[in-house]
Structures are given as structure tokens and as C-alpha cells.
């Protein structure tokens, strides 16, 4: 059984006064196994971000089933979904989404705050996560004192700190220069090697080329699912 399994998942948005309906996803079937490194490619509006939000339990499908580790996500309440996001998922966003008032280490330990971890332990865990992305020396800096690449590494540390099984990254390199982008992809690949399932959304084929499996979306449907040969 796959870790992530979507069956006939559709998502329809009502625009305006409900007269216009936008079908963001049209019956998508998808299976991602534990330990995979997948990128989802597509133009803007292809439904790839919607898919990622559904996988991350931030959004619910209009129809279809989403099974996460053998559990039907649609049957979970909002507290259980929060629990899933806290314990199983880690998120990395295009715009970093760090809290500006908190320091780097304060941002990184936030998931552990909601997990109810003791302050001393969560501080240690957060420093360790920052160390993994090479920013232990910037722990007490605020986001506005860090470069874009550094902010994204803080965000990755935040995604890593609660030892998630899945990390979801929505255009993680979208706001970064090429050098920083490659650094971020290296860190994500490194996380994948430690056994974390990583799914990234991108419109950049160069970034997608870093991952062994590439799904291509167009108009709410998956039109291509390519796996690189072993060892390539």
C-alpha cells in the first residue's frame, strides 16, 4: 500500500456568486510510496498547488478519496487534520511564510510548541534542525535579517523539526536565485535520503530534473508520470 493514495480526486471552486465553477482537479489518481522524491510540474492553473494542498490536508477534495497511510483523510475532524499536519507533514512554501516577529529558532520550534513539547527540549530540537540546514549560527536572527535562501532553509528546518514522514514544498525555489535554488534542492534530496517522502511543486523543468519521478499536470489532470531509471 502506498503512503499517499488519491482516487478520482476532484476539486471545484465556485467563483463570484457561485455561477462560475472552476474545476481545478478533474478526477486525479495518484500513488506515492514512502521514501519517494516526486516533483509535480505544470503551468500555473494546472491544479498542481491544489493537489499539494489536498495532500497536505490543508484543503479537502470536492469528491474522491484521499488515503494517507491507510487512513481515509475525509473522515478526519479538524483537530485530527491539525494533528496530521503537525506530526506527519512538513510544509515549505514559495514565500517562506516565516513569522516576522520570531527569531529563526523561534520559527523552527513553532510546530513543537503546538505538539506540546517542553521548552528546553524543543529549543534543542530546533537548533539541531537549523544545524541540518547549516544555519545554527543564525538561530537568533529574525527573518528580515536573513537572505531569501537562508529564510527558505529556516522554513525547511521548521518542516523537519517534528520528524515528519512527508515534506511538501510548493515552488520552494520560486523566489530564489539559481545558486540558492540548487542549495535548497540539495537539502531536500538529503532529507529524502534520510527516508522522508518529498513532494515538490514547480514549473521549472530544471528543478524537476533533480527528482527521480516527475508528474506533469495540465488543466487539472495528470498527463504524464515519468520515472527516471535506477541509478541515473
Amino acid at each position, binding site marked *: 500500500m502506498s503512503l499517499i493514495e488519491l482516487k478520482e480526486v476532484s476539486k471545484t471552486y465556485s467563483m463570484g456568486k457561485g455561477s462560475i465553477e472552476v474545476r481545478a482537479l478533474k478526477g486525479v489518481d495518484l500513488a506515492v510510496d514512502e521514501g519517494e522524491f516526486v516533483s509535480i510540474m505544470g503551468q500555473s492553473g494546472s491544479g498542481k498547488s491544489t493537489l499539494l494542498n489536498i495532500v497536505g490536508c490543508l484543503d479537502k477534495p470536492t469528491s474522491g478519496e484521499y488515503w494517507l497511510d491507510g487512513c481515509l483523510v475525509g473522515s478526519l475532524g*479538524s483537530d485530527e487534520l*491539525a494533528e496530521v*499536519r503537525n506530526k506527519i507533514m512538513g510544509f515549505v512554501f514559495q514565500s517562506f511564510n*516565516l*513569522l516576522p*516577529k520570531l527569531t529563526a529558532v523561534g520559527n523552527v520550534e*513553532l510546530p513543537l510548541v*503546538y505538539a*506540546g513539547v517542553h521548552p528546553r527540549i524543543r529549543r534543542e530540537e530546533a537548533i539541531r534542525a537549523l544545524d541540518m540546514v547549516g544555519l545554527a549560527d543564525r538561530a537568533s536572527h529574525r527573518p528580515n535579517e536573513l537572505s531569501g535562501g537562508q529564510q527558505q532553509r529556516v522554513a525547511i528546518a521548521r518542516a523537519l523539526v517534528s520528524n515528519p514522514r512527508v515534506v511538501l514544498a510548493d515552488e520552494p525555489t520560486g523566489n530564489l536565485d539559481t545558486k540558492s535554488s540548487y542549495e535548497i534542492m540539495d537539502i531536500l534530496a538529503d532529507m529524502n535520503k534520510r527516508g522522508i517522502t518529498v513532494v515538490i511543486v514547480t514549473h521549472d523543468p530544471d528543478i524537476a530534473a533533480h527528482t527521480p519521478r516527475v508528474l506533469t499536470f495540465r488543466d487539472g489532470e495528470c498527463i504524464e508520470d515519468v520515472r527516471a531509471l535506477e541509478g541515473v
Partner: protein
Amino acid sequence: MRPADYLRLALSGVTSNPFRSILTALGVIIGVSAVIITVSIGTGAKVQTQSQIQRLGSNLITISSGYRSLRSVITSDILPIIESINTVGEVVPQVQRQSTVVHGAEGLSTTVTGTSANYPSVRNLKLAQGSFLTDADIDKGSWNCVLGADLAEELFGDDNPLGQKVRLDRVRFTVIGVAQRQGDSGFASSDNAMYVPYTTMQRRITGSKNINTIIAQAVDASSMDLAYSQIYAMLMMATGDEDSFRISNQADMLEVASDVTDTMTLLLSGIAAVSLVVGGIGIMNIMLVSVTERTREIGIRKAIGAKEHEILSQFMLEAAALSLAGGLLGIVVGLVGSRIVSQVFSWPTAVDMKSVALGFTLSLIVGVFFGAYPAYKGAKLDPIVGLRYE
């Protein structure tokens, strides 16, 4: 989330924008302090009025002429009737008139009271110098008088007033006594009064047998009710018209006075409580702004695993912390304020601990009540909407 983390989050919400927090809490500060100050003024006034009424003498029944009587039935003729009642001890007539008392070039407006020799014992009047009018003065209608402390001082300054002459209308009186200073009684200052025999007053000044008020003192506290009804019965027999006289006892006066101050206190503290509600609306307003401003923050927190009740608690606690801080500051301002009121306006104030507790409780309720809707709005926010918010 751990309890300490909830507290830390609420406090950081309050302290991250201190000026805004103070402005927001100001409504609650004003409301709570206004409740405390108004109640303290009311309580002080009540205590003072009661002590003033007590000071006028004890077990007193006041008889005066009715509102609707054309000809007063309360005259010297009534006195022996009331004196004959067995539950009545002393009876004091008061014939009063506003007049000008003159000594040398000095003329002062004063309330002249024509009364009897037992006035000091019934009305708790003590003499500083000389003696009060005697029964002999009353019987022969002598031209002796006793002055209130202020009046004596204004007329004679440092000179000894005893034996001096003062002029009232065309009559010259000899000062035989000066009363001790009593302080403002709230009704009429007895320190500015002049006492003469009521017989002299009736013959020489008012020219009638009318008496403004008769004070009857019951023999003891337990016979007050009996004395009251006996006086009523006697007056009904004598006049046959219950509208031609009025009788009131001290208990009634106390009750009326405390009713009046209670009503005033309730009214004023009601107005103060309204300002507390206005303060609450201020908190709600700023919390709504705060939730909107932090839409993205809420989205991020939810994305990394914050539950609805954790977001709800964050904002509720922030609102409660704001209004509690306002409440505590309000109590301090209220306590200081009521001291200032009593010092600056020389009004007696007595801080009622119940009003402090009330103000504190109200501020907490206001915070929770008006914080609830904004917090609920934040808690129910869709994480996707929050994350997309610019």
C-alpha cells in the same frame, strides 16, 4: 500546547504593540475606575448623611404644619397637648425666621430660632461659653440670646461676645452664650444660627403664635412607634384634618436619605458601567483588526499544526489579558481617584470593596465576551485562505 505557551502568546500579543494596547484598555480603565469612584462617593455620602441625622439628636419626632393648610394649626396651644403624652419626654418648639443680626457696623444674615430651654439636650447642642436660655428666659420672654460659633466669631472677632448687645429687627438682645462649633450638618449650619426664647420671638418678631416645627423626643427608642401614633391621634383630635400637619420620625428621614443616595449611586454606577461596555466594544474592534492583520500568521500556525481551539484561546486570552490589565489599572485609578475626590472637593468617599470586586469581574467578563467573536473568527479561518492572504 502547554499552558505557559498560551500565556506567553497572549502577553506577546499585548506587548507587541504597547501604545495600541493602552489605548484599547483605556475604555476599560475608565469604566472600572468610574464605577469605583461613583460608588465610593455614594457610599461616603450615605455614611455622612446618616451620621448627620443621628447627630441631630436621638428618638426625635418632628411635627410641622401641613402643606395644604391655609392657617397653621401648629401653635403654642399644641405644646401642652403633646407634652401630656406619656411616651413623649422632652418637647422643643422651633420658631424660625431668616433675619439680619447687627452688631455695630456689622450685619449678617442668619437663621434665628426661637426655642425653649431644653433645646441643647434634645438637639445635642453644646456650649463653648456662657449658658443656654433658661426656663425663666422663656417664661418672661427675655431678650437674651445664644449665638452659633461662626456667627459669634464674625460679629465679634477676638472680643468676648458674652454680655454684648446684638440687634435683630428693632429688638436688642444680650448674648449669654456661644455654642460649640458643630460643623456642617448638610441641612442648615447650626454654627451660623442664633437662638432666642420662642416666646420673645413670637411676641416681638413674628407676631403670631405659630411654630414652624415641634420636636418631640420619645422617652426611649422602643416607644418611638407608640409616641408617633399617639401624637398623630392627638393632632387628629385637635385639628380634625390630617392634611393640616405633618409628622416624621428619624427612622423615616434615615430611610429617605439612604434611599436617595442609593438611587443616585445606582444611577451613576449604571452610567459608569455603560462606559465599561463601550470599552468592551473597543476591545472587540481592536481584536477584529488584530485577527485580520494576522490572517497570514493564523494560516501559517494552522498549516504547521495549530488546532482551532488553540487559535481561539490565543485571541481570547489576548482580549482577556487586555481587559484584565485595564481592570487592574482601573482599580488603581479608582482608588487614587476617590482619594483625590475626597481631598479636592472635600466630599467624603468610602471605597466599597464590593465595587472593586465588581469592577474586576466586569472587566474580565467584558474581555471574554467581546473577545469571543474575533477569536472565533480567527479560529475558523481556512488555512488556505490564511496562507494566500497578502
